[in-house]
């Protein structure tokens, strides 16, 4: 692919271009198992530069991959056809904070935690809070519809975005959404952009809805000897109308991982449920906590510890927080891969889903755990395997397929928050079989030359294992 570097230099300046093979190699991967190679990395700093890059790329039919921090887990930013990687981290200004309107306007490269640090003095926060909020950019979060532990109460990114400025494939700039909480009529184009994974446009500014920081927050941890009981507690907590601000599940593999690698001393039980309530009025938080505690106890939950104190809460949550670290070091020789990493199932199927994941792992000779923000219907797993062995990839491929076959069979969905990209695309395409034509038509209408993050989601290859090279050296 011929790319006119001089032209790109004219647009962003020589200091904002990289094309050494070493740079391209780095920008060819993310937190997924995939690896590709871009042709050039550019770093725009203004909307006009983004427009000029897209105008050029559209005219020359060059793929453009918008990139935040590259923390996506499904290969969303891995180039398949080389092209231009557009690193948006330098567009990182918080444009304005309007407490009176409960909104802020930011550039796409602002990191979530940095935004929340800036909002704190106003007594406000931006709620989606993915676990990766310390690095995830607002652009990446919107394009993935990220969510997190507090989404059970505050919703996902889609519920927190009021509007945005987007540069379309042909370089046109459009203003979508509004500055208001409601916008009733017409196609919700701003919402269409949420979760579009860089395939429909480049988000260059976002208007975000803010929430007041709660005054009280209480966290509890309950142990269960049966996974089923834990699942039923979660389901009943939601069904009774309780309002948790966090409702998390950890299975026995997750508990063992945390205990063996980090010596955390969590109870050696089949499952742990963590529940939290927050609010302005302590009595109201007390009432929510009492209700959730009673439900857990009714379903044989025991050893319930609870605290309002920040230090105590940090201690209670430490096992969950450090789970990823623990999984990475679960067993010498095994790597923690982001495969079948997220899904959503109806509440009543949480426990069954976790058990299915265990069964599938065993059958395919890999290790899989089940945990997640179950309060919002989200279940996570990771596949722990020796990534240098071919047969492990065969097992992983079968496991991914079986997990998602099950998820579909119970009316669940392929991605709760980590996106589709490449590694979840085959399962997602099966799930969306009857709307694939619509999805493709939308893509064609907005990006007729297919330059925006091509070959992802509905257009991704059929086999994720061979979609790109794997980032591990497979023997």
């Amino acid at each position: 692919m011929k790319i006119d570097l001089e032209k790109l230099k004219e647009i962003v300046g020589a200091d904002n271009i990289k094309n050494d093979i070493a740079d391209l190699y780095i920008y060819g991967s993310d937190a997924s198992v995939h690896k590709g190679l871009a042709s050039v990395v550019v770093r725009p700093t203004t909307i006009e530069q983004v427009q000029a890059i897209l105008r050029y790329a559209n005219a020359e039919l060059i793929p453009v991959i918008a990139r935040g921090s590259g923390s996506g887990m499904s290969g969303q930013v891995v180039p398949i056809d080389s092209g231009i990687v557009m690193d948006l981290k330098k567009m990182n200004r918080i444009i304005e904070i309007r407490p009176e309107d409960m909104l802020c306007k930011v550039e796409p490269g602002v990191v979530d935690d940095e935004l929340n640090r800036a909002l704190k003095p106003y007594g406000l926060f931006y709620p989606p809070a993915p676990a990766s909020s310390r690095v995830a950019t607002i652009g990446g979060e919107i394009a993935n519809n990220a969510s997190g532990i507090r989404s059970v109460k505050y919703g996902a990114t889609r519920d927190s975005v009021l509007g945005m400025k987007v540069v379309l494939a042909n370089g046109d700039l459009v203003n979508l959404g509004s500055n208001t909480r409601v916008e009733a009529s017409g196609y919700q184009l701003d919402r269409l952009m949420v979760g579009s994974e860089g395939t429909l446009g480049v988000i260059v500014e976002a208007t975000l809805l803010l929430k007041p920081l709660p005054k009280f927050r209480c966290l509890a941890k309950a142990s269960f000897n049966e996974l089923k009981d834990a699942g039923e507690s979660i389901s009943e907590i939601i069904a009774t109308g309780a309002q948790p601000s966090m409702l998390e599940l950890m299975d026995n593999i997750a508990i063992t991982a945390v205990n063996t690698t980090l010596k955390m001393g969590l109870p050696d039980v089949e499952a742990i449920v963590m529940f939290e309530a927050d609010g302005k009025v302590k009595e109201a938080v007390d009432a929510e906590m009492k209700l959730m505690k009673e439900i857990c106890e009714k379903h044989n939950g025991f050893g319930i510890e609870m605290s309002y104190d920040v230090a105590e809460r940090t201690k209670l949550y430490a096992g969950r927080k450090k789970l990823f670290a623990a999984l990475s070091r679960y067993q010498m020789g095994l790597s923690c891969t982001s495969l079948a990493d997220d899904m959503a199932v109806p509440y009543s199927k949480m426990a069954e889903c976790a058990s299915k994941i265990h069964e599938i792992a065993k059958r395919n000779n890999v290790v899989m755990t089940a945990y997640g923000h179950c309060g919002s219907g989200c279940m996570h797993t990771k596949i722990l395997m020796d990534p240098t062995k071919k047969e492990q990839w065969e097992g992983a491929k079968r496991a991914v397929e079986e997990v998602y076959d099950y998820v579909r069979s119970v009316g669940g969905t392929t991605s709760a928050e980590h996106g589709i990209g490449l590694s979840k695309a085959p399962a997602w395409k099966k799930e969306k079989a009857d709307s694939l034509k619509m999805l493709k038509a939308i893509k064609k209408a907005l990006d007729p030359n297919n330059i925006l993050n091509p070959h992802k989601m509905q257009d991704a290859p059929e086999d994720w294992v061979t979609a790109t090279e794997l980032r591990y050296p497979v023997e």
Partner: protein
Amino acid sequence: MADKHLKDWKNELNICIRCAYCFEGCPVFKIAGWETDSARGKIILAYGILTGNLKPSQYIADKIFQCTYCRDCSERCSAKVSVVDVLAAARADLVEAGFASDTHKGMAKNVEETGNIFGDKEIKAPVQKGEIPVYIGCQYLARPNQTKMYLKILEKLGVKPLVKDEICCGYPLHALGFRKEFAEHKKKFLELFPEKEIVALCPTCAAFIHEDYKKNVKHITQFILEHLPEKNLGLKATYHDPCDLSRVMNITEEPREILKKLGIELVEMPRNRKTSHCCGGGGGILMSDVKLSDEIGIVRIKQAIETGAPLLITPCPTCEQVLKKAAAVVSEKGDGTIQVKNLSDIVWKALKT
């Protein structure tokens, strides 16, 4: 073999989940802003060399050497990857492939010929008989007044320091990838210091002797704290944690306790203790990339100025040097002032009164 040293770290490289959490506090990434400058970027480069996807090049070497070894990345890493160990192995492979910089080669030669990194034969330890072996290290030896001050502090606290005609601890050879030279040097060092217990003045020497030679090292601050009487200097200051002291040696409270005992009101920077921001002086960049080192130093000194304290105290000679320079630059630009002092100055002042 381009991966002779790296191949020992294959598992560690496979464990990295590429989450990018190491972007958050990496001082080099914060300045340069390209992913190539982050810990994850460097880990990916090392992986590329190991897997044969990338051929070692000058560009890759430059990137792998642009790291202060501050270990902020490992501290924040979701998988606790020993980034610095991986990079040290990558550096060793790159040096063996002929990519050592002239500055670093010169430093290695200095250590071999004179026993210190400066290649200055005049730099000599003030040899004295005593009870407790004290290791001074090149940086303090090049600052004879401060060395003298620390030794006097120890004597005043009733301790008789034993000072030998010492040589460099070897850390720079190891960190900059001169493994062959390091192996020879290590032998010499261990012959000179057969003792199991050592008190070290410099945080970096302390961390290295502790980690690599597996000796029971006490940093001078721990030692001072045990013996220090209470005083009241009535000062207000902020404290800068040297990376090797906080993140490697886990020594964060002792220096603060010392300041408290001396009646100093401590105002913390938001990034303190294990999340302290690097001064920019480590990992060899002070020699090979002064501009980058200066820029990192300025970021840190601005954080110190924001506390409103008129004084910054640190027990590390390198941090002191870099931050003093940064304070001068910032002050000249009219962006605030702060005095930078070594902990020894403060303790000595207190003991004199």
